[in-house]
Structure formats: structure tokens, C-alpha cells
């Protein structure tokens, strides 16, 4: 009697993992950005203890200078305009990720793309530190937003690679470029 054994199910590809990492990242970014707006709203409504807690939560990551912050109800947001731009850009990048990168391949952006997206914040930030000019908050937000949009393409790819390597108990190959990707997909998007 021949025993028929079914073949082992194939290991799950990156698609499901990328989707999960993306979902968690979107939720986290939404909570993070809403908290930034929640602090001044709470302060304006008299919930000062909670507002102070949120301001304190963001203080290690931002200088929180009031003159560099957007205001809501007369109170500054919990982070400066540039940081808000970075976080908003991060969320925008997360939302654009499926359309730009797809879910099947783990590939990082090219160095050229990173430099291109980083150039505005680097130039504006350096000029501010050197005292060459003082940008308005809107310009700070815009340069931060531009830089923030490229970051999820690193974050999601790297975390998904980490999760996959832990699942499989191996170190995965470096996901750089379509030829070296974990699972080659159609090369498109930010290259």
C-alpha cells in the first residue's frame, strides 16, 4: 500500500509579511500624528495634565520651540513644523507604498532617490544652523515632508526582512535592487 504524502506547504512569501508590517506602521503613524494634534487640543480644553504628558512624550525627539511650531487653538503642536512634516511624509509614504513598491518584493530605494529626497531638508537645515537664512514654518514642513516620504520604503522593507528572517530562522539575502531582492518582482517605483 502506497502512502501518499502531500508536499510541504511552501513558505509564506514576503507579501503577507509586508502587508502586516505596513498595516501596523500605518496604525502607529496615525496614532503618533493624532497625538501631536491632541496635545494642544487637550490644553485648549483644560485637560492640562494629559496635555503636559503628551508634550513630555514628544520632548525627547523634538526641541519643541514654540516659534517653530504650528498652533491649534492658540497652543503649539507637540512637535516643530519640520518634525510634523517628517511624520506626515512618513504616513504619506506608507500609504503610497503598495502602489509604488507592491507587496511581493523586498527592495530598498536607490541611493540616488535617498539623496534626492534628503537634499531639501539637508540644505535648509544646514543653512539654518549656519545662519544663512531662517525658513518659515511652512518651508520647514515641506522639506521635512519630502524627506519623510522616502523613509517608509526603508522602514517597511527592513522590518519585513527582519520578521521573515525570524520566521524562517535564517538571515535573508540583502534586499537591494531587483536582482538581489528576496523575491524578484517587477522593477518599478522609486529607483
Amino acid at each position, binding site marked *: 500500500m502506497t502512502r501518499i504524502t502531500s508536499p510541504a506547504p511552501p513558505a509564506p512569501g514576503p507579501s503577507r509579511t509586508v502587508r502586516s508590517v505596513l498595516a501596523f506602521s500605518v496604525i502607529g503613524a496615525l496614532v503618533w500624528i493624532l497625538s501631536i494634534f491632541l496635545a494642544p487640543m487637550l*490644553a485648549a480644553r483644560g485637560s*492640562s495634565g494629559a496635555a503636559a504628558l503628551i508634550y513630555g512624550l514628544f520632548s525627547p525627539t523634538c*526641541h519643541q520651540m514654540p516659534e517653530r511650531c504650528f498652533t491649534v487653538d492658540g497652543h503649539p503642536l507637540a512637535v*516643530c513644523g519640520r*518634525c510634523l512634516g517628517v511624520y506626515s511624509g512618513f504616513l504619506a509614504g506608507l500609504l503610497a507604498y503598495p502602489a509604488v513598491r507592491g507587496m511581493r518584493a523586498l527592495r530598498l530605494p536607490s*541611493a540616488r532617490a535617498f539623496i534626492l529626497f534628503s537634499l531639501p531638508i539637508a540644505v535648509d537645515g544646514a543653512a539654518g544652523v549656519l545662519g544663512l537664512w531662517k525658513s518659515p514654518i511652512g518651508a520647514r514642513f515641506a522639506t521635512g515632508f519630502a524627506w519623510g516620504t522616502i523613509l517608509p520604503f526603508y522602514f517597511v522593507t527592513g522590518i519585513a526582512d527582519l520578521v521573515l528572517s525570524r520566521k524562517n530562522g535564517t538571515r535573508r539575502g540583502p534586499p537591494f535592487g531587483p536582482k538581489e531582492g528576496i523575491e524578484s518582482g517587477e522593477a518599478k517605483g522609486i529607483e
Partner: protein
Amino acid sequence: MDQRQPEYLTPALMAGAVAGILSGIPFVNCLCCLWIIGGGAVAAHLLAQRTGGPLTGGDGAIVGALTGIVAAVVEALVGIPLRAFNREFVQRLMERMGQFADDMPAGWESWLDQGPGASVGLFLLGLFLSAAIFAALGALGGIIGASFSRRRSAPPPPPAAG
């Protein structure tokens, strides 16, 4: 495919210490989270130099997250002696807290005077939250650093047949 796990701790300690010090020094810390992201990138670069081989995005995430945790601890420690010199920050915080004075518990003014050492629980809670945030930022920097280190290193050998 390389199955060895690289040694993450030393690069994380080195880069995290520098990033934590820079994040904790008044005026230098105006670059916000960039010190932590940069620290994660440097740690990945150091790791790539030590291993002499390609880093995966996961490697960068691990070493970057460790860097962020180290930076959070160092920043907290640096902040204790520097707190007295950081008058501008304390002044801003006092002004902001003053807006909520009516709703704050009695004796809240003394929190700032006594520093984080006055309340170990508050200090540890802040340290825990900072470590979690810095770990995420450091992981991001580590992944970016891993990608750049990978591009500079030699191409990986072809997989063994069979």
C-alpha cells in the same frame, strides 16, 4: 546565504553613546531625531566593517534598534548633570507648565527643581518611552545605513550549487 549572526552590541554601544550624548547636549539637540537616525546608520556602517560582508535590512534594523536603546539611556544620564545648564529648556517647560497650573497636582513646581532623580518612577517611565521611540528611529537609521554599506561592499558570492 550567510547564516551567521553578526555581533550587534559593540557597534550599537559605540554609535548609541555618541548619539545619546549629542541628543542630550543643549542647543546641539536642535536636530531632533536626526541624531538617533544618524546613530543607527553609523552603527550599521560599523557592523558592516566588522563583519566584512553584506548586511540585510533585518541586520540594520536590529543594530539600529539597539543603538536607539543605548542612546536613550545615555541621553537620560547626560541630561541629569546638564539639566542645571539647560536654562532655556527649563524656562520653556516652566512657562508651558504654568499654563496648566490650575489643573496640576499640588507641589508640581518642585518636580522641575528636583530633577528626574526626585521621582525614580517618573524617570524610569520616561526612559522606557524614550527607549521605545528611539529604538524605532534607530532601526530606521540602521536600515538606511545597511543599504549604503551594502552598496559599497563587494557583491555577494553566488549561492553554492546543490
